[in-house]
């Protein structure tokens, strides 16, 4: 077993991975400050913040021989017998010098800087800087340069760690950013007429350890110390990227990437990052709307009235059917199916339209934006297959629904974009006796449905999603849904007459016990998700059966 010694403390190295000094020190609970190093980017060892003393311990004699000079921990591999000293006088002096040097030309405009509060320059200065400025005072200067549609550069705040430059070259593969000039006059810039415009550009803001790169979407919207971060799953496509949802008082201000080595590593795409604005759209459906006859105007109900209405329809109905949206969580899909089967044991359960857009987009850094623009087709399909539902293309399912002409048709939506045509809506309306719709936005179907139940958007509900690779991931709620909207799971829970509040974790446990595809699930779900090991054979037909919408 390989051992490294960090500040006198011995730690075991994992056998499968080569660690550098920073990672090895983390194992020992020591945080080595660093700017330029990032696990997802190449090592340049240029910020010199992670300088440590390093040596080797002779395996036979146990004698330690230290190197005379400081070495950057990011560039130094941790091997058996490597000794790191991270808190000696020499190391502390080097860190303080780097901090002092970085602040030489920095405008120190923290009060008007978006990064203040989560800025490494601030944090490290308090931890490793020196109490007093020795450098001459600068006249205040803060130049701003728009790099592209999503990012703006505050030139003078930059510490030249070159993370953003490397990201654009190595991960996005577009290489828009570069370093111009030399020495202390160095700046980050783009070529004229070649702005920073790629689908991963927002990541450079997150990578920036200081306030140099700012997100134009987030700029001056909120001080970061007012934000609370909740773990979440991006529902923009079937990749299932892990995100942080930063909100204040039930309003989302930004999404950030959350590291998951199995899914998105450290990155998320721009469509995902800026794809939360629909949550706060004024167009969202709110209030439970009952339409008594096709021509009469809709009247507003309380949830209790709506529930009684549904239950009475369900009692009278001759045959029931449900359309399950691939935006539903696994738990919601399971509850809906369960309830439909209670209403009518022969009820027809079908998969809703699966939105696709173009082709999968692959980036050189291993990141992929999926063409399938919904988070949970695979999860819903697995649940449907358990219940013997139809998982074929939407056109087929629609035909089956129309020929079944159910007494009660339940349609779940949740799409961000238009998902159903007026003709399809009319057909469905005509086929069903009672039509209940759960959705986020007005659509041709919401114009004609008997009862419209506004649903919850992705950050507003807890539940799990199964991504394109069959990994089940758990997303707790981050904000409360607007008044007059009710999370789908809560609706089904109450229709099933289960007591109290909707408990998705309970439902997931039930799923794990009853549905074969989910037998690998453990509750609570680990942070990086669970690979369901869905058999490849099952994956094949499901993929080809995906609907073009």
């Amino acid at each position, binding site marked *: 077993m390989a051992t490294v010694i960090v500040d006198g403390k011995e730690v075991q190295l994992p056998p499968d991975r080569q660690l550098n000094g920073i990672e090895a020190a983390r194992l020992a609970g020591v945080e080595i400050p660093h700017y330029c190093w990032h696990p997802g980017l190449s090592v340049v060892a240029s910020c010199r913040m992670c300088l440590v003393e390093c040596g080797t311990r002779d395996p036979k004699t146990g004698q330690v021989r230290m190197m005379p000079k400081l070495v950057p921990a990011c560039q130094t591999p941790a091997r058996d017998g490597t000794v790191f000293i991270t808190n000696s006088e020499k190391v502390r002096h080097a860190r303080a010098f780097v901090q002092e040097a970085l602040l030489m030309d920095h405008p120190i405009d923290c009060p008007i800087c978006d990064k203040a509060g989560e800025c490494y320059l601030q944090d490290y200065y308090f931890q490793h800087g020196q109490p007093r400025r020795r450098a001459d005072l600068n006249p205040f200067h803060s130049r701003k340069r728009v790099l592209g549609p999503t990012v703006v550069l505050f030139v003078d705040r930059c510490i030249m760690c070159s993370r953003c430059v490397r990201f654009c070259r190595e991960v996005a593969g577009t290489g828009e950013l*570069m370093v111009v000039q030399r020495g202390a006059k160095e700046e980050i810039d783009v070529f004229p007429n070649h702005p920073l415009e790629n689908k991963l550009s927002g990541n450079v803001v997150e990578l920036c350890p200081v306030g140099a790169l700012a997100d134009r979407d987030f700029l001056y919207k909120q001080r970061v110390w007012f934000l609370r971060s909740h773990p979440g799953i991006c529902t923009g496509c079937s990749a299932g990227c892990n995100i942080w949802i930063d909100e204040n008082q039930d309003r989302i201000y930004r999404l950030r990437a959350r590291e998951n080595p199995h899914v998105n590593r450290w990155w998320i795409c721009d469509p995902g990052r800026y794809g939360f604005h629909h949550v706060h759209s004024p167009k969202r459906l709110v209030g439970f709307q009952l339409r008594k006859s096709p021509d009469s105007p809709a009247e507003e109900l309380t949830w209790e009235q709506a529930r009684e209405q549904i239950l009475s329809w369900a009692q009278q109905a001759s045959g029931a059917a449900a359309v399950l949206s691939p935006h539903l969580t696994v738990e919601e899909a399971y509850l809906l199916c369960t309830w439909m089967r209670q209403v009518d044991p022969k009820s027809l359960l079908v998969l809703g339209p699966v939105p696709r857009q173009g082709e999968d987009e692959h980036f050189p850094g291993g990141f992929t934006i999926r063409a399938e623009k919904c988070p949970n087709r695979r999860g819903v399909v697995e649940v449907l297959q358990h219940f013997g539902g139809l998982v074929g293309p939407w056109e087929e399912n629609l035909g089956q629904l129309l020929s079944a002409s159910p007494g009660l048709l339940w349609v779940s939506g949740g799409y961000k974009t238009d998902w159903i045509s007026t003709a399809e809506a009319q057909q469905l309306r005509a086929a069903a006796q009672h039509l209940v719709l759960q959705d986020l936005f007005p659509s041709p179907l919401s114009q004609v449905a008997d009862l419209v139940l506004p649903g919850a958007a992705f950050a507003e509900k807890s539940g799990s999603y199964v991504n394109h690779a069959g990994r089940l991931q758990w997303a707790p709620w981050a904000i409360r849904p607007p008044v007059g909207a009710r999370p789908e799971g809560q609706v089904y829970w109450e229709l099933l007459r289960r007591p109290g509040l909707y408990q998705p974790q309970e439902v997931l446990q039930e799923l794990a016990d009853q549905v074969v595809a989910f037998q690998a699930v453990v509750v609570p779900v680990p942070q990086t998700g669970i690979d369901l090991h869905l058999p490849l054979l099952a994956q094949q037909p499901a993929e080809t059966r995906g609907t073009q919408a």
Partner: protein
Amino acid sequence: MAEFEPVLLANVGKQESWTRRVYEQNGGYQALRRVLKTMTPQEVVELVKASGLRGRGGAGFPTGVKWSFLPKDHPGPVYFCLNADESEPGTFNNRILMEHDPHQVLEGTIISAYATGASVVYIYLRYEYPLCLKRLQQAIDECYEAGYLGRDILGSGFSLDVYIHRGAAAYICGEETGLIESIEGKRAWPRIKPPFPAVQGVFGKPTVVNNVETVACVTHIAARGAEWFKSIGVPADPNNPRDAGSYGPKLYCLSGHVNRPGCYEAPLGITCRELIEHFGQGVWKGRRAKAAIPGGISMGLLTAQELDTPLDFSSLQKVGCLGLGTAAVVVMDETVRIIDYLYNSCRFFAHESCGQCTPCREGTAWALRIVDRIRRGRGRLVDLDILLEIGNTIGIIPGTTICGLADGAAWPLKNAITKFRQELEDFIRRTNPQGYMQSDPVPLELHTLEH
């Protein structure tokens, strides 16, 4: 001192010394013919190792040892880079060689490429040397005509192509890995090591980078043997196993306040005073020397008392200098203010820092601002301590930077402040009688941002 027959400069000054005709009339390319006919590459490496030749570019690394770091049996290609990006202030010996005797350089290059198994040579030529470009290209063309370059050189089966790559006027491109990055078409940010260039250099292939004067020496080692080379210079100290000795002839560049500045050839180990008195014919205008830069501006400073230090690879460290460097001696007479010397050196390094490592990028700029302020009469005594701290903190020797540029910036600071502290303190007291004791941060004047 004993008379020394110049070797490297033997052809310099002859009529049309840069042509192949003149070079061959004086015995040129005989060594190359013999090497290709009678020696294996490994034997050439051993020969150069045995000669004790150390790199003339500044660091003084043994050349043969460097060559032997190349991986054996590499499928290739292996690249040989000739570092002609001579940009250390005060240095012009490569220029003399390339302008007046380019064939000597090329012959050494071909022999070195043969020894290292390289199939392509890149000559990284400093942008400011247009005449070198002309003469070198001419010489390369002549070599192709004569069959010294190209496919199957002189029937030996060894093929070699030589390309001149012109730099874009950056000091950092003279750094081994900065040069490699630049040849690859990238920004010349020196690379982190390992991997070393011998393993992964230009385009990820094994690469050797040697100075122009080094390969010129290889020509003569191949012609006259290792014993001859070892008979010149200062032998290694037998009591110090780490001393590799200082063998062979060396081109000394003498400039500054001397009567006869120029590029002179002498055996390694000549003292600075000998150089000034014998070759430079003394300090100009009958004045006395106050100080001298021993080997290019980055090597530090010799005081008048230290002028008897031998200019070889090991003696200069003993008087606190960084090393021999490029052996470019710049003499300052007694009228020079040390603060002006410091200002020039700081301005140079702040301008030339590549900007990769924080301590160098900000440290050199910081030092320049302080020195400039002192020079403008707003210095404080505490500034000298800050400057000394910058000098002690930045560089590859304390380990805070990737390449040695910062050491070059640090040594003038350290040497000037430790060796001339009294003068600097007097200057600060005299020019800033009100504020010299203060220590609060000084508001920066706008004009100093203009550098």
